[in-house]
């Protein structure tokens, strides 16, 4: 079911990571992703793994839960690995049969690609696991705030994002209820050919749209009756302010990035994969 996909979901827990300023999490996640793509040494990946593992422990999100989130992208991962394995040529030939050739370079590229993608997905889902959609958009709004100067409607974009994010679970729940109500009246959603199936969706889509529009209308009304007029001159009830732990997080991440680069550059033992 749609609900089983955990990428991008929030995982409620009490941890220092959950309490961090969203801006810190966004920026540090970006730095981590960049560090994955700019370094090429084995030792660098070991450090990245240690760093990631430490952050997972700090987040108090159960490890199995994170692994479960990887399931939907396993196909993507496999395809990437296979392509790299067979199509990258270079170094000694390890295996050759008919049109399939595996070279040393191909093997190492494939392995590193798999590690990279896995780390990338774990890293970014850690951000969404520990940040509610609302504070995520708050963080984005604040980070993009300078763009206001060149007339990008940052506040409006952030507001639309948070409304959209908020509505996803509501609409999922609504769909669930409507489906149940129609199945209870004998609606058959499974059998039949494509046209019959599409027709069978009408009793679900019509009430869903009606209720989505009604909700949008109600929301607009509620916002207006609270005098919402867009971003101009608007202040926050809880402005984002960096605290000690946020500076600490920046520091740790920067130290990590420097360490990874330094090792890639100065420690002689490494495998180049490009």
């Amino acid at each position, binding site marked *: 079911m749609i*609900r089983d996909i*955990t990428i991008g979901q929030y*995982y*409620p*827990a009490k941890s220092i990571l959950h309490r961090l300023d969203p801006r810190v999490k966004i920026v540090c996640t970006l730095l981590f992703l960049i560090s994955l793509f700019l370094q090429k040494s084995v030792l660098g990946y070991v450090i990245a793994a240690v760093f990631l593992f430490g952050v997972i422990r700090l987040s108090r999100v159960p490890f199995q*839960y994170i692994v479960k989130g990887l399931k939907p992208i396993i196909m993507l991962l496999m395809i990437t690995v296979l392509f790299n394995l067979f199509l990258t040529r270079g170094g000694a030939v390890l295996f050759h049969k008919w049109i399939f050739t595996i070279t040393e370079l191909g093997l190492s590229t494939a392995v590193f690609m798999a590690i990279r993608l896995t780390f990338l997905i774990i890293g970014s889902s850690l951000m969404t696991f520990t940040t509610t959609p609302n504070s995520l958009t708050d963080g984005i709004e604040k980070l993009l705030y300078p763009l206001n100067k060149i007339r990008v409607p940052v506040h409006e974009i952030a507001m639309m994002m948070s409304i959209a994010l908020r509505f996803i679970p509501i609409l999922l729940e*609504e769909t669930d*209820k*409507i489906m*149940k*109500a*129609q*199945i*209870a*009246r*004998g*609606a*058959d959603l499974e059998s039949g050919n494509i046209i019959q199936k599409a027709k069978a969706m*009408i*009793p*679900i889509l*019509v*009430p869903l749209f*009606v*209720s989505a529009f009604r909700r949008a209308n109600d929301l607009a009304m509620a916002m207006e009756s609270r005098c919402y007029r867009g971003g101009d001159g608007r202040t926050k009830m809880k402005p984002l302010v960096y605290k000690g732990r946020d500076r600490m997080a920046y520091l740790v991440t920067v130290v990590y990035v420097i360490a990874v680069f330094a090792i890639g550059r100065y420690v002689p033992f490494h495998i180049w994969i490009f």
Partner: protein
Amino acid sequence: MSIKAEHLNYIYSLGTAYEKQALKDVSFEILQGQFVGVIGHTGSGKSTLIQHLNGLVPATSGKLYYEGKNIYDEGYDMRALRGQVGLVFQYPEHQLFEVDVLTDVCFGPKNQGLSPEECEKRAREALELVGFPEKYYKQSPFDLSGGQKRRVAIAGVLAMNPKVLVLDEPTAGLDPRGRDEILDQVAYLHRETDMTVILVSHSMEDIAKYVERIIVMNQGEKMYDGSPKEVFAHYKELEAVGLAAPQVTYILNALAEKGMNIKTDAITITEAADEIMRNFDD
């Protein structure tokens, strides 16, 4: 001829951070022709429980028998079950979708494979039964008031001629007269056609007036199960879990405390009045 639940457990969002056990080891048997009330405060699992009865929500563990057959068995005909156990949901706006009221009510019978004429006949009967005025038959169901929508939703399920009718708070949003009308019709159907009726309600007066048996839910568990007199005798315990007994129970108990020699188990106003009057007679 019955519905029998054995050790039903249900957990929402199993295996995620939002796991929530909504039913805990619930067992009961409802015989054909019974009029059963289900009460319990908000979030106690009433809606979850009744959605098990027609197989919409499959229990996490436990067994459910309809007319002696376990509905979780491989190859059980769920669609037939849903025609037999009609379920009216708490919020009627979730099921209305057609261009007009009459066509919407026809949806259920149509799914049962009846001819268009037969569908319309059933729809008209059902709408009449719930007291929906004929002049609105061709109106869009979205233009109706909340109470009218609810009547149409109930008619939509009645039109399938179910043997068991399950109503989840059917009278929310209705005025007192509308409420009595609908419940009187349901009681009439129950009497005339031996239909089993399961009524979820927050109104103790409605429950006391119509049902012959009450199942009390509390935090996913079955707390009491018995006749209204038996259940409302526990009015102190009911209060502790956010429920109440009908108002006459309180009056009778207060009178008894003041020294009047009366029985306190009357639950409808007429019964209570008789009991008090009897006290004056002798």
